[in-house]
């Protein structure tokens, strides 16, 4: 009986651990070979990081001068505020999850404003009033910066 209980507990624990990985399984891109080898590769240099993390100490230049006694008191508050900020950052990161890959088949045109990280195969460039568009099947894409990353958005020339 005890053994069964142990197994049940372990299995449940394992399941919970797996839940954390599930979103990753569902948001797999269909990227070029390099990104398949290094799935995080495209995500590291800017906002498209899957797990947004801190790369700087200073995250805002507003400083509220406090004397050291106040700092002692305020420490718990700031810790809480930082946790909130971290939560907000995570949410922001989630909101900017990597754009989905373009659908493999060029059937129905995508809604305007759809963001993809890489252009589908077989696009032709076309310049309209000094803006370059890429025609891929039934869609036109335009390169735009999302943070430091160049992404492609469906647009109307």
């Amino acid at each position, binding site marked *: 009986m005890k053994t069964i209980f142990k197994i049940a507990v372990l299995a449940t624990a394992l399941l919970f651990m797996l839940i954390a990985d599930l979103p*990753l399984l569902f948001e797999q891109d269909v990227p070029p070979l390099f990104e398949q080898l*290094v*799935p*995080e*590769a*495209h995500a*590291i*240099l*800017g*906002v498209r990081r899957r*797990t947004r*993390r*801190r*790369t*700087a*100490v*200073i*995250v*805002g*230049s507003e*400083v509220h*001068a406090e004397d050291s006694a106040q*700092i*002692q008191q305020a*420490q718990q508050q*700031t*810790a809480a505020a*930082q946790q909130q900020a*971290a939560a907000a950052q995570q949410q922001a990161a989630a909101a*900017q999850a990597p754009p989905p890959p373009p659908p493999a088949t060029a059937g129905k045109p995508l809604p305007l404003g759809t*963001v993809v990280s890489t252009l589908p195969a077989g696009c032709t460039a076309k*310049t309209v009033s*000094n*803006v*370059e568009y890429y025609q891929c099947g039934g869609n036109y894409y*335009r*390169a*735009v*910066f*999302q*943070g*430091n990353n*160049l*992404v492609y*958005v469906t647009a109307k020339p």
Partner: protein
Amino acid sequence: MNTLNFRKAAALFALGVLVLSATIATGVRAQSPAVDPAATQILHRMTDYVGSLQKFSVRTQNTLEDLLVSGHRVDFDVSADVIISRPNKLHAARKGELIDQAFYYDGKTLTLYNPSDKVYATEPAPGTIEEMLDFARETLGLIVPVADLVYRNAYPLLIQDVNMAVVVGKSFIGGIRCDHLLFSRPGVDFQVWVADSGKPLPYKYVVTDTGIPTRLSITTVMSNWNVAPAVADARFTFVPPKGAKPTTFMPF
């Protein structure tokens, strides 16, 4: 039965000792906040010095630790050449295995240019480097290399909420003898290596995110410091090369 009782007693005793020692340790820590003034003074001297420089240029080697989905640790390197002219000019050229990007800020606009894609975007920007860095990060989602050390008022910004500061020791970075400092704030630890004689310049900077279990870091090694570079203002203004296409920033 006796053995069992003895075991129970031993376990209880061990637990008691643990709890007691933990309580004592917490008490000690609370009594002496581990902020060594020697460490904060060196940091202050460095930030004051860098903040006082009217112009400077530096080469930075940035290593971003990352985790693959498979769980393997991998490093991504970006080499960045940065030129600053206070109060309102900054140019940075970044090259790495995943980025080829130039950044221009001339006090009026900022531009991101990807030479390999021949695409650039220009946006009106605030009038000082400090405001521009905030704007770039908050409004456009841009990351500017070594931004932490570029802020003119970097000291209060860095030292805010620091609850641990120590001089770890002396080390050599690129042949320069440096004081090795370690600071900790909630959610982030950072280490700075500052030249211990001559100009108090930073030669290495490590930021570790302690808010995530993997505690990943970004490491910046600085070299080729020039505190009086001969740069014309034109260097900071982007002139689109032939064939380069304009684009826009997506709202952040």
